């Protein structure tokens, strides 16, 4: 991975009513795996949504040196009332793949997340962990250059959480850039190459993961690490 930024964020602001949710954020993202940390309500999810294009900033800009194909996985997987396989196919068909091609890619993606045996099961009847793996397969099948994950394992049991982490690492190993948030500091240190710490809508710190967990540069980050028990 080159160290050149794949995304430059310049003076990003998001104001809703009286609330300054994202406050003048400027950031160069160059690492292959970036984890955004911060307390609840700090603006982590909002920042990811702005980058993904689900929200539009009040001011500021995202500069992509080269437009990257993206996919996003949410905290709560949204499953359509159809089979797991059909959920993965749905995303592929929206991207313009033919029916035959979509089915083949969808089956491969489900196999990669270890769910080929559940392909024909109604997606909404799967367990929370299985649904999140279907969501990961749906994102992975699109072979995005940038995968954004918003607390992908926050509502899962430890075993499912580990499985999700394994899949994220596989997706990264296959070449995708990872940009994610998590409340699980252990997960952040295992996945993240670089940590972006956000506090009340402002970027407070951007450091390589190793040094962040050993000695955060800012007081706010030190307090945050003390308050959250690492898993």
């Amino acid at each position, binding site marked *: 991975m080159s160290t050149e930024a794949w995304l430059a964020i310049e003076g990003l602001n998001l104001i809703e009513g009286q609330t300054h949710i994202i406050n003048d954020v400027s950031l160069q993202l160059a690492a292959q795996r970036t984890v955004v940390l911060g307390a609840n309500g700090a603006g982590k999810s909002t920042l990811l949504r702005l980058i993904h294009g689900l929200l539009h900033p009040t001011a500021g800009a995202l500069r992509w040196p080269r437009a990257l194909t993206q996919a996003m996985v949410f905290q709560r997987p*949204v499953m359509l009332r159809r089979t797991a396989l059909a959920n993965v196919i749905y995303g592929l068909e*929206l991207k313009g793949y033919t029916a035959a091609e979509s089915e083949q890619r969808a089956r491969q993606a489900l196999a990669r997340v270890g769910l080929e045996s559940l392909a024909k099961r109604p997606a909404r*009847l799967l367990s929370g962990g299985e649904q999140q793996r279907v969501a990961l397969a749906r994102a992975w099948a699109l072979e995005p250059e940038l995968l954004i994950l918003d607390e992908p394992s926050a509502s899962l049991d430890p075993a499912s959480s580990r499985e999700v982490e394994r899949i994220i690492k596989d997706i990264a190993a296959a070449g995708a850039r990872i940009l994610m948030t998590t409340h699980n500091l252990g997960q952040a240190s295992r996945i993240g190459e670089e940590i972006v710490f956000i506090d009340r809508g402002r970027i407070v710190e951007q450091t390589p993961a190793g040094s962040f967990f050993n000695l955060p540069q800012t007081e706010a980050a030190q307090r945050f690490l003390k308050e959250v028990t690492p898993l």
Partner: protein
Amino acid sequence: MGDHHDPFLTAWQLVAGADARLAGIVLLSLRVSLSATLIACFVGMPVGALLAVGRFPGRRVLIVLFNGLMGLPPVVVGLLVYLLLSRAGPLGQWGLLFSPTAMIIAQAILVTPIVAALSRQVIADAWAEYSEQLRSLGAGRLRAATTLLWDGRFSLSTAALAGFGRAIAEVGAVMIVGGNIDGVTRVMTTTIALETSKGDLPLALALGVILITLVLSINAVAYALRGWAQRRWG
């Protein structure tokens, strides 16, 4: 038919004996109201979905309008369709007045806002849950609307059912545009109204019982279907 024999007994004999006249009336009722509901679903569900996910000027006005039109008085709809279809009206040359087709048109107009407004509610709830995911996958609003219509197919059956319940139970519109002609445009509700005013209670009562049984059993089937769908698809 006897005036002061036991009307309940006579009513039961009519039903049990599958009286031909009675059967004709019931079948015509079903044909008219099912056709009207079908048309209302074809129009109302897509309209409801677009009102739920669309972003266009006048959307809020249309939502209020459709919600308001849910309470459209059947006699007013009957009158409007009558004016449209009467010999001097804009569609007069089609000669549809006092035909089952006219009744279907009137009931479809009556029921479409109900189906549209209820569908909009169902789709809007689903949209709140799905919108980020669908937009993330690159679905435009039109594609999202069709996806949600399919995904909400079991909940939408409630909207169709409410429309059918309204259609099969209304008198005013079909009375005006159908004319309650014996053997041609006489349906359950218009027959009940007429026979009661004539004093022939057994036929009115028999039809009343059938009407209620029909509405209840359709609701029961729909309820069972939704339960099954919930277990099957979540």
